């Protein structure tokens, strides 16, 4: 009887955990996709990191990445 009375609180807690964890996973995966697309787009336009090309163009040579 007590378990039935408390069931909404237990289900609510597990549902909240599911939403928060699923939200975190979705955030990380969508962010990764966004950044990869942005990098691919820049590379398509010829903007690449100095270390990523054999013969760097002038603007690339000036680039000193902080990270």
């Amino acid at each position: 009887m007590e378990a039935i009375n408390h069931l909404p609180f237990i289900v609510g807690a597990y549902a909240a955990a599911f939403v928060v964890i699923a939200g975190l996973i979705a955030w990380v995966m969508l962010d990764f996709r966004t950044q990869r697309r942005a990098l691919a787009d820049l590379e398509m336009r010829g903007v690449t990191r100095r270390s990523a090309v054999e013969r760097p163009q002038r603007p690339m040579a000036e680039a000193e990445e902080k990270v």
Partner: protein
Amino acid sequence: MSLVDLANPSRFLKFANRALPWLGGVTVIAFAFGLNQAMGAPDDYQQGATVKIMFLHVPSAWLGMLAWGIMSIAALGTLVWRHPLADVAAKAAAPIGAAFTLLCLVTGSLWGRPEWGTYWVWDARLTSELVLFLLYLGVIALWRTVEDPSRAARAAAILTLVGAVDLPIIKFSVDWWNTLHQGASVFRLGGSTIYPTILMPLLVMAVAFTLLFVTLHIAAMRNEILRRRVRTLRLMQAQATS
């Protein structure tokens, strides 16, 4: 590969790409095992079935504090050693820590209503945990306010170190003040006061949550490194065209 080698962002990316599928798999297995144990755990003689909420609430509380602890160490790395990955680690940990702290507050409220008769009380433990959540929001807002990542990192590092004062307050609030929240029952001098049939699922769930945190943190750090590369390349492109 040593930890020093991983300090290089490119090497860290290679490590993350290799480690994340494995970490994800181990995390799923740990959660499957932990949830199975949690659902099979007996009711507590006082809490009844609501003890099952503890299997979410306690690991969330630990991780909320662990994330701020990691951010504090990273803040030292930013301010003292200017480590290239320190502010990346701190920035990536903040939203994850905030999410676990929020989950701790929500599950605690859902446990409190049937056990204490109220969702919320301005108890020292609950209030200091709420302060931690607000500190997380403050740090996230600071990161978003300052455009230059290195300037934002220094400001966020100072706020993080100031906020670290809240960690011992959370931990010892139940000893220092007369609180409605129960005292330490897992890690305490003299051993745990929890019966093994409930302690084991709790510890397994804590391991699963910790693995999830590590996986998400590494993934978020990878995203942050890529975001900074995108920013640098866009700046280069703007300079080249101007």
